């Protein structure tokens, strides 16, 4: 019972402070209800479920630049096809406006880069890759600071104290790497995968720095990120089992360190906006000799966006991927494996309610994917969508192994 006076005193203090501290507090609730049904050409349901989102947004302070803003969102999802039912805290952050500096703390998504769909420099958040090629960004606990040096230049610093890996592809989509035993031995056992996830320690801090210059007509940004690879490098350790000539294989999934240096930018040239983005990933295995560590790689994206008068808006992009090859046993230097993809996206607002979208990704290995879609607004905040995917290509190519996964997804959602 002694707690009562304490609680009463706290309540009195809050009530006393409330008029000043929260005099300009404004909040609003928003949310989404969505049902989705997806079927692929094999006859399997890819998704059969529903999702509910409820978000609280608020700000404290003046109208133009408040003292602080905040957001918290709960998501509840059930998917019979994926045998998933969960309630989770999605974004939950608070932002302080300190003059020309904005400090955001909490579970958040950060978006870096300039190009469409494929962003080599955008690596701070893990992703949900359960159903490829979709890779929705997941929020991660982060401290993010953005300082406006002047109206044209801003600097961002992000610190991620605890590493969270991306959600791997679902079992149906997963490609387990072949584990090659050393010559002359017999593998008697393949043990369960040992996943080495960097723990919550100061040495496992992840960080990013980005400087953006946005004068009139173009923008240019340079970034550096000190990260862990969000999808693991898989290798296998040979474990002698005591019998000569017989070993056990211990698969290991390791999230190795990366240094990512990137640039991105865009420029307006008449009716065309040119966008570009490039990143180089440095690893601790520059020569490709250590199978437990990923090799250095790079990705370059260049694209153009232009509207067709009275027609769709077109985005065309070329995506070049490169990775240092594993060093051959002879000790000779490895080469670089490169791949080239093109992407064409057309979006068209047929009227105020109907939006059409089509995307075509084609890899120069002969595989690709077509994704047509249409959405329709039945009423304010109520939207239905239908999206298909057609995958083509021979086995062993980027998309070819998924060609049986062509399908369609229908959804209906209400935003409030």
């Amino acid at each position, binding site marked *: 019972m002694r707690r009562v006076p304490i609680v009463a005193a706290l309540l009195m203090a809050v009530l006393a402070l409330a008029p000043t501290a929260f005099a300009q507090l404004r909040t609003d609730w928003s949310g989404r209800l969505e049902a989705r049904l997806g079927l692929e050409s094999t006859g399997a349901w890819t998704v059969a479920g529903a999702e509910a989102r409820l978000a609280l947004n608020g700000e404290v302070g003046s109208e133009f630049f408040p003292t602080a803003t905040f957001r918290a969102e709960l998501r509840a999802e059930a998917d019979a096809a994926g045998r998933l039912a969960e309630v989770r805290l999605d974004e939950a952050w608070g932002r302080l406006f300190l003059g020309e500096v904005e400090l955001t703390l909490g579970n958040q998504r950060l978006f870096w880069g300039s190009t469409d769909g494929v962003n080599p420099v955008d690596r701070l958040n893990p992703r949900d890759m359960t159903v490829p090629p979709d890779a929705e960004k997941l929020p991660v606990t982060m401290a993010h600071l953005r300082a406006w040096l002047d109206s044209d230049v801003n600097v961002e610093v992000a610190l991620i104290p605890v590493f969270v890996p991306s959600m791997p592809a679902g079992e149906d989509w997963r490609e387990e790497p072949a584990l090659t035993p050393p010559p002359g031995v017999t593998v008697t056992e393949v043990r369960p995968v040992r996943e080495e996830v960097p723990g919550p320690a100061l040495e496992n801090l992840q960080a990013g720095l980005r400087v953006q210059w946005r004068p009139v007509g173009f923008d240019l940004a340079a970034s550096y990120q000190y990260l862990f690879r969000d999808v693991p490098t898989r290798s296998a350790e040979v474990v002698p089992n005591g019998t000569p000539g017989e070993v056990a294989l211990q698969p290991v999934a390791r999230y190795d360190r990366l240094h990512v240096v990137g640039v991105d930018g865009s420029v307006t040239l008449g009716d065309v906006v040119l966008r570009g983005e490039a990143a180089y990933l440095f690893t601790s295995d520059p020569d490709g000799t250590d199978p437990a560590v990923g090799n250095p790689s790079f990705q370059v994206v260049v694209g153009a966006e232009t509207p067709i008068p009275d027609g769709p808006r077109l985005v065309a992009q070329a995506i070049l991927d490169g990775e240092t090859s594993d060093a051959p046993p002879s000790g000779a230097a490895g080469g670089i494996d490169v791949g080239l993809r093109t992407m064409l996206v057309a979006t068209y607002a047929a009227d105020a309610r109907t939006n059409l979208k089509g995307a075509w990704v084609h890899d120069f290995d002969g595989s690709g994917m077509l994704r047509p879609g249409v959405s329709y607004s039945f009423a304010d*905040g109520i939207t239905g969508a239908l999206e298909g995917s057609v995958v083509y290509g021979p086995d062993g190519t980027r998309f070819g192994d998924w060609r049986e996964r062509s399908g369609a997804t229908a959804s209906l959602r209400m935003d409030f």
Partner: protein
Amino acid sequence: MTRRTRTVLAPAEARQPSSLARTLAALLLVLAGGLLGAPAAAQAYADADELMTAVDARPQPTTLQATMEMTLTNASGQSLTREMRTWARSDEARVMKFTAPADIAGSGFLMIDDGAVDETLVYLPALDRVRRVAGGQRGESFFGSDFSYEDVEGIDPDDYAHELVEVWDADGGPVYVVESTPLPEAGFSYDRLVLEVPEATLIPARVTYYRDGEAVKELTVSDVQEVGGYLLGLERRMETLGRDSFTVIRQRDLTLDEDLPNEVFSERFLRR
């Protein structure tokens, strides 16, 4: 608007009629006026440039803050409603942010055109990115409405060559019909605009937009009221001709001439 007496001005290249023709034209005008029972009112502006200079010089608030409600109606009569908050400083800078419905709330755009700077930036919260809109994209639909981005930016008389093609008298006084052709360097998507400008308000009451020689849209400005000492058209209706869809934008909760800091017209404010 009641049309009583009409004065038709010939195209520029035909404006050197013979004295006989001038006499006949004057006679016809007098007869027409007599037959319709109302003499042509005195016109304050002799040509289009003089008129459009007056339109441009019309007293305007230095800053404006308002809530705008946008109703999009299709040919079947079904409507969607969107609400946004806008901050504007003269014609040089404007920020618009959607507040409803929920699926587009937070989206917005920033337009700056103060002579030294000319660009339009769009912010989409789902991508959390500020994107520059290319010149040609100004002709695209403004968030699915019958307005395009360039329609929303308004009409700057300096971007056009003007020709007065017609004047008629209405209850409120003369109404001027002006044909405005965009200057090539302005980069607009329309071939020409035909504006109907009442002398009493100097607010274009109707604007017809032409593309490839055909009228494609028609803007009607109504609910002209005096607010804070300024004459403002609080309702704009844009109809897409041939598709029978239209969008109405109404302004309310106006605050005029209140200082707006420079930071309001920045990427930072757009994405906050």
